[in-house]
């Protein structure tokens, strides 16, 4: 689980960002990039001493100034779930592709024709049969 993938998945979620200078920013993540530069909305900024507060509609934080980010615990499971679902979807899509292409390849010499529309379903059927 890459830290940047966790951050990308945290878009629209609330988080706490502490900067190297000790200031904290509480807000919802709008966007982030590979340098971990982030934009937050509805931000509550607290000074390093904890005595001064600001409310900002939106702010941009440079990644190089961040010390750490605190995100909701539920996010980890949500991201892992999403990654698993994406992997399953990718696998099934690739599987259909492979069996379809294989059937077409093998069908060509015996058929001798590429543009045989009537042949196509049968070719596909053969591929599907092999796949199953």
């Amino acid at each position, binding site marked *: *689980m*890459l*830290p*940047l*993938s*966790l*951050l990308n998945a945290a878009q629209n979620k609330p988080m706490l960002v502490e900067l*190297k200078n000790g200031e904290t920013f509480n807000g919802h993540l709008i966007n982030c990039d590979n340098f*971990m530069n982030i934009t937050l909305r509805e931000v509550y900024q607290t000074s390093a001493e904890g005595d001064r507060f600001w409310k900002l509609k939106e702010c941009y934080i440079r*990644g*190089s100034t*961040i*010390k*750490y*980010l*605190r*995100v*909701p*615990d539920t*996010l*980890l499971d949500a991201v892992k779930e999403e990654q698993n679902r994406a992997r399953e979807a990718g696998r099934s899509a690739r599987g259909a592709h492979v069996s379809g292409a294989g059937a077409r390849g093998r069908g060509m010499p015996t058929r001798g024709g590429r543009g045989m529309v009537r042949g196509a379903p049968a070719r596909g059927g053969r591929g599907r049969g092999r796949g199953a």
Partner: protein
Amino acid sequence: MASLQGYVDHRVLLILQDGRAIVGVMAGFDQKSNVVLSDSKERVYSMDEGVEEIPLGLYLVKGDQIVLIGELDDAVDQSVDLSTVRAEPLPPIRY
């Protein structure tokens, strides 16, 4: 190649540049040593009282803030009674 791969899904101790000590399960890392820690707790050491453990939850720590990542031996860690430990907090990094 000094890699953090061996620590994934293990309980680790993270020491940060400001002297903080955080324990948690390492969920992930990247080339810049940014680390994702789940179920993390900060251990605050003092000379007057025992170690205070503050639960923090899911944490993403920037690699440039990390001093050291140590693999926690769970057996040894369980046997330590944190309330009896007295120590100065770790000094911060000074360049």
